[in-house]
Structure formats: structure tokens, C-alpha cells
């Protein structure tokens, strides 16, 4: 299997612009032969949208834009982060786009409410795992903070996942790159599964996002490292659910 990772500098509130960047990445991913394209957390509306999430018109526009984007998906599977307005609350969600529609949705379980995060102000926690089959591999989806708790990755494995992917909106600080590796490696060792960690790039008010996406194998060893501070579309090769190790650098 071949996975494309889009490390994009999305703009908060720019729904058409963000969708256009994802469409461009889709074209590149297809050309490169990828079966799956992964974008970062809330990649459709930009992260973090803060109180825009409280505005019904904003959520409705996100739903419209997601439907438009889904209709353009053909020949591969695309993971897009969006704020989902459900009947019983708002969710920090990832849509699995395939064959012109939303094939499945994962709702973030763990909502961080410390340091710069206040997601409990906005979101209801999801409870179900989400595993989709892509290229013969069962891929489990979790979102950002989910990888910092033990539960969601284990739940994905129990639901049959052979590989875990994690879209993130993880802001930089001086210790963050080491901390992410530590935590993601721990999840990989607990579950025995490889994990694809995808982060956004760019500045958003007081936050900067370094990208620095990476893949660890089932033993927790880094198999592939994407550059920091660069927008990029990178491809990762898998042998079954096992990532192939490649040389790479944070820059």
C-alpha cells in the first residue's frame, strides 16, 4: 500500500481555500499512486477555529464544503478533518471520503482542555472506533489527543485495525517533537501496530505548527520522518501494514 501525507498550511475559516489545497493534494496523491491521502486535524476549517465553532452558520458552511469536496473524490480514499454538527452535539471529526461521498466518520474521543487547548468548550467526545479497509489493510483512525491517551488506539486495534493513522493539530514548543515521538512510540508498542502521525504546518495567532509528521513501526521505531516547517506531500510505502523504513530528516 502507498499512503500520501499532506502536511498543509491551512487557513482558519478559509473553507474554499482549504478545500482547494486538499483537491490539489488529491491530484498529486493520485498521480503518485497513493490509495490513501491523510490531511491534518480539522483540515477543512483550519485548526484551531475557536469560537467560530459556536456559530451555526460556520458549521453549516463546513458541512456544505465537505459535501462538495467529497463529490470530487475518485480513485482513492481521503481523510479530511471537519467540525461535525450531530443531533446531540458538535464533534471534532475526520471524514473518510471515497467514491464521491462520506463513507465513514470518526469522532475524537479525548478532548484536551489544558495549556492552549479548550476543546471541551466546543466538542462532545466520540465513543466509537472507526476502522476502514484500504488496499486490503484495515486502517484505524484516531485524532491528535487520542494518541496521548491509551484507550482510542487500543479500541481501534480491538476493532480490527492493522495500522493506525492520526491527523493532528499539534502546536510546536521546544520539547514537543521529542514528546510526540515518545507518546506515539508507546502507543505503537502497546498495540503492536504501526502509526502514521500527520501534523499541519503554519502560524495561527500565538501558535506555530511545525508539521514534522512521521511514521513509527509496530515496535515504536521511527520508519519515516517528514521535514519540519515545510508544506509537503510525502509518500510512504507499506508492505502489508508494515511501513518501509526510509531515510529522512527534520531539517
Amino acid at each position, binding site marked *: 500500500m502507498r499512503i500520501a501525507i499532506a502536511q498543509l498550511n491551512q*487557513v*482558519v*475559516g*478559509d473553507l474554499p*481555500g482549504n478545500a482547494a489545497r486538499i483537491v490539489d493534494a488529491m491530484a498529486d496523491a493520485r498521480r503518485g499512486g497513493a490509495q490513501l491521502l491523510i490531511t491534518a486535524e480539522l483540515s477543512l476549517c*483550519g485548526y*484551531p*477555529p*475557536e*469560537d*467560530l465553532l*459556536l*456559530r*451555526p*452558520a*460556520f458549521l453549516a458552511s463546513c458541512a456544505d464544503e465537505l459535501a462538495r469536496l467529497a463529490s470530487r473524490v475518485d480513485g482513492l480514499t481521503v481523510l479530511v478533518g471537519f467540525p461535525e454538527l450531530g443531533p446531540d452535539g458538535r464533534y471534532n471529526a475526520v471524514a473518510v471520503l471515497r467514491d464521491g461521498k462520506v463513507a465513514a466518520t470518526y469522532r475524537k474521543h479525548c478532548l484536551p482542555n489544558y495549556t492552549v487547548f*479548550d476543546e471541551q*468548550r466546543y466538542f462532545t467526545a466520540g465513543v466509537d472506533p472507526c476502522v476502514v479497509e484500504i488496499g486490503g489493510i484495515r486502517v484505524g483512525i484516531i485524532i491528535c489527543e487520542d494518541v496521548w491517551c491509551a484507550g482510542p488506539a487500543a479500541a481501534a486495534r480491538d476493532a480490527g485495525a492493522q495500522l493506525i493513522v492520526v491527523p493532528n493539530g499539534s502546536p510546536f514548543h521546544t520539547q514537543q517533537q521529542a514528546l510526540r515521538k515518545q507518546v506515539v512510540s508507546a502507543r505503537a508498542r502497546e498495540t503492536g501496530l504501526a502509526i502514521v502521525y500527520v501534523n499541519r504546518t503554519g*502560524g*495561527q*495567532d500565538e501558535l506555530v505548527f511545525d508539521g514534522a509528521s512521521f511514521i513509527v513501526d509496530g515496535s515504536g521505531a521511527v520508519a519515516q520522518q517528514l521535514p519540519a516547517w515545510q508544506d509537503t506531500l510525502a509518500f510512504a510505502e507499506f508492505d502489508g501494514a508494515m511501513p518501509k523504513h526510509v531515510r529522512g530528516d527534520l531539517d
Partner: protein
Amino acid sequence: MGVRDYVEKNGFPGVLLGLSGGIDSALTLAVAVDALGRDRVRALMLPSIYNAAISLEDARTMAGMLGVRYDEMPIDEVVRAFKGTLADELKGLAEDATEENIQARIRGTLLMALSNKYRAIVLTTGNKSEMAVGYATLYGDMAGGFAVLKDIDKTLVYRLAHYRNLLGRVIPERIITRPPSAELRADQTDQDSLPPYDALDAILEAYVEDLLSPAEIVARGYAAADVAQVVRLIKINEYKRIQAAVGIRVTPRGFGKDWRYPITSAWSEWKHLAESQSR
């Protein structure tokens, strides 16, 4: 109680504020004296050539009615010095908000100098309507430690002024009845650049507190041009609000911890309004 506790619990000996002869600074002064007593409140009038004579008269009258220490410190000489230093940069360019803001910033600088010297905290006098649409000068009239009227829109400012006078007259009637003006250039009124305050405040409440979209607000009967202008101003002044002094929250959604919008944002709802109307 909000003013008293902020001042006392944080150990300030007193407060000082700039009077303009307008209703916002008048109400702020009245609240300050009610909260702290006249001995802990100082009022300053920092007039320029653009202040009407009645602004000075009314400021003097009000300070006299409340019995607070009142001083006048004309700023025209400082304005001249500023413009002199900037002369090469300003040469050949039309006067605009730059020159207006210099006046406000001189006042802010002078008040902060007194604050440093005498340890008194500066009360800012801006109201919620101004905070919403950015009708205020950063580091000018926004300079200060505590924003008493931060969550009181202009309509409520008038009602509170009336109410306070019912309890005992402290605000000269003319301050309440004359049209509001920043008095930063000749013959200026707020309505030169903003919709009338009753419409402005209704649009603000619908957008800020009720979270309605511009289209929904227009459907309530407000002019599309006013709605678009107000929503646009709210959005582009996020950077200014985030640098404003803290103040007392009294509505269901004030511009403090219950208003956490991204500054960097492309979400421009007023444009949707223009698009849907041109269809």
C-alpha cells in the same frame, strides 16, 4: 463592586481617568466615585483644538458636582511637537486617522505618566459598541488598566446615565443629550463612520450574543449595508480587542473569556451577504 474590588484587591490607592465631555467618560466617572468615593478618583481633561467649548464646560461642571479633583492639560503643544517630528513623513499626505490617533495616544501617554507617578490605575472609558467595531485608538483611549464599560453597549450607557441621575443628579443633562463625537477632528460625530447606535447595538446583540448569521440579521429587518459593515468591523478588530484592558462582564457574552475568536481568520460572513444579494 466590580470596580471597587479590582482596585482594592489589587492594591491601587485610587483611579484616574480622562474626561472628554462625552457620556462614556461621564458615566465611568460616576461609577468610579460611587465605587471608591471622591477622594480616590482624579479626573483629567486633556483638550485639543477639536474639543467644543461645551465639552470643557460640561467636564468641569460634572467634576464639580461630584467633588473630585479635576485638572486640565491641553495637548495642542504636544500634538504640534509630534507632527513636527513626523513632518517629513507626513509631507504631502492627506490628514486621516493617523493625526486623530496621535491625539488619543498623547492623552493615553499623559494619563499613564500620572498613573506611574501616583500609582493610581487608569480607567478606560470605551463601551461595548466601540469595543465591538474598533471605534477606539489602541495605545490611546484604550491605554489603561480597567475598562469599566467594556460590556455595556452605547444604548445601555444612555439608560444607565439616566438611571444614575434619577438617584441624584451627577451627569449634566447636556452630556446626555448632545450627539456623541470622538472630537478628534472638526465637526466629527460617531455617526459619520458608524450606523446609528440603536441599529448598531441591535445588530451587535444579534451577532455577538445570539450568534446569528448576517443573513438572519437582515431578515430581522436591518439594512444589509449596516449589517455587513458591523460584522466586518467586528471581525477585523479582533486584534484590537485582544489588546484591550480587562473589564466587567454583565451580558451573556462579553468580550472577555467568553469571546475567543481567532484573529487570523478568513471567515468573512459579510461577504456571503453581498454574494447572496447580488444573485
